[in-house]
């Protein structure tokens, strides 16, 4: 069976008049259906660049990214993208913000709109569908942004530090909230974060990137006993041992390789 996502020997550099910056070098990995992957690494290691390549917004300089066995540009698979900021448009109501993707793709029908309303209801935003984004709390805004993404029924969800703009307490709650939603819907997701504990609490597998140019340094599968939510994971004994492991991998031989 072909894996849902396959990254083969991908490299990427940024070019300016001042010179070339190698961002990613020879990255390969693949993801099975239904997996939640977290990408961690020091800041500036090209995590967000990798996510952009996965989304198809940017083409790799060399190597290929395959979705369901086909290059992304020609793949029929749908990709959802969540950004650091919620990017809700202030001149639209929450409902119309959530409908933005459907509207752009010409899929906004009575049926999809009532689905959308049901989703807002399910995720606790039912009473706010006519509010402006500025009237909502940070966590609610991020949830509205998630609904905007999920409304398109993406096969793969890319999360670019979606909680980093929130304060710590909200961040834990929203991460718990959103990761549970994703698990319930059995979504494939790639989460980029610089927060190790966030990665360990949310993912099935952690990929560690080295500092620039980003190479794949280690891959750590996570096993927690039983169905767990991110907040419950933080209290489990496995959590701290995984934390130490990831921490060690991240800091190990950085001096040797660079």
């Amino acid at each position, binding site marked *: 069976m072909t894996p849902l996502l396959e990254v083969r020997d991908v490299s990427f550099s940024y070019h300016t008049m001042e010179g070339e910056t190698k961002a990613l070098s020879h990255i390969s990995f693949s993801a099975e259906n239904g997996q939640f992957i977290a990408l961690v690494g020091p800041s500036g290691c090209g995590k967000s660049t990798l996510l952009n390549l996965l*989304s198809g*917004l940017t083409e790799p300089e060399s190597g290929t990214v395959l979705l369901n066995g086909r290059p992304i540009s020609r793949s029929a698979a749908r*990709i*959802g*993208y969540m*950004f*650091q*900021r919620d*990017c809700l*448009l*202030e*001149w*639209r*109501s929450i409902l*119309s913000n959530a409908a*933005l*993707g459907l*509207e*752009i*793709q010409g899929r906004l029908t009575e049926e999809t709109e009532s689905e959308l309303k049901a989703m807002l209801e399910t995720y606790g935003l039912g009473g706010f569908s006519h509010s*402006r984004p500025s009237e909502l709390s940070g966590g609610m805004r991020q949830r509205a942004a998630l609904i*905007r993404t999920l409304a*398109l029924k993406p096969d793969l969800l890319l999360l670019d530090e979606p909680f980093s703009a929130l304060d710590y307490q909200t961040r834990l709650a929203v991460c718990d909230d959103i990761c549970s939603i994703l698990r319930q819907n059995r979504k494939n997701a790639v989460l980029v974060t610089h927060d190790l504990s966030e990665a360990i609490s949310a993912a099935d597998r952690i990929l560690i990137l080295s500092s620039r140019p980003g190479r794949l340094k280690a891959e750590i599968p996570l096993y927690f006993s039983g169905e767990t939510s991110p907040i419950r994971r933080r209290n489990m004994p496995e959590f701290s041992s995984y934390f130490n492991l990831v921490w060690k991998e991240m800091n190990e031989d950085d001096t040797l390789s660079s």
Partner: protein
Amino acid sequence: MTRSPLKLLRRSSPSLSQASLSQAQQAYLAKELRSRRQTLFLQRMLFLLLLALWELGVLCGVIDGFIFSSPSRVLLCFASMAGNGSVFLHTGVTLFETLLSFLITTLLSLMLAVLLWSSPRIAQVLEPYLVLLNSLPKSALAPLLIVWLGASLKAVVVSAVSVALFSSVMALYTSFVSTDPELIRLIRSLGGGRKEILLKILLPSSVSVIISTMKVSIGLCLVGVIIGEFLAADSGLGYLIIYGQQTFFMDQVVTSIAILCLISSLFYRGISLLERKTARRGGSR
């Protein structure tokens, strides 16, 4: 932004006042309201004082009424021009020309700004020309336009558009290119192209810039119209001013200037009204 603070207070107070307000809050509101009323009163008194000084100066012979005119002479002049209807004709001509050139400027500058945004290559190639045209004093072009287009309404409108257009294009284009790149990435990630970026992000997020540009350009259009009328017209307030000056009929010059003051403040208010309306609507879809 420019709404009168007094009105703002009046509009917001009924919902707040009465029941729930603490005494300190009530006292604060009363104090604010009083201070704003005083400002308004002083503004009006200053106006009356200046008019009175002017009138008195002429009456006592400190300044020459023939050259400096006076409020009473202006009123008389206005009355006689209103009597034969000429003042309405000339004001109407200037108003029409200004509104027409404002309309053209607004539409044309939006179209040009969208064109520049949609093609970075065109924008790069045209940039030095736009900078040049923007910094050139456009009044220098007016005599040229009049020779080319003849002394007609066309020449007046074109010279007004040329005064207002380039700064308007630059302001809109700058606003377009400084749109939050994250929002553009959002549209792309949702599968949208340039058209969607323009319609869903650029235009709605630029509403306030478009309106503030309109505020500037209606003023510039009026400038352009007056310059055009100075040089090539047989009607309009600009024509009245230049004709009055040539015949040393200063009352007519000052009367026309007073009407111009009224027109420009009316335009400004009109756009402010529009601004308030869009702000209240929150620019919803």
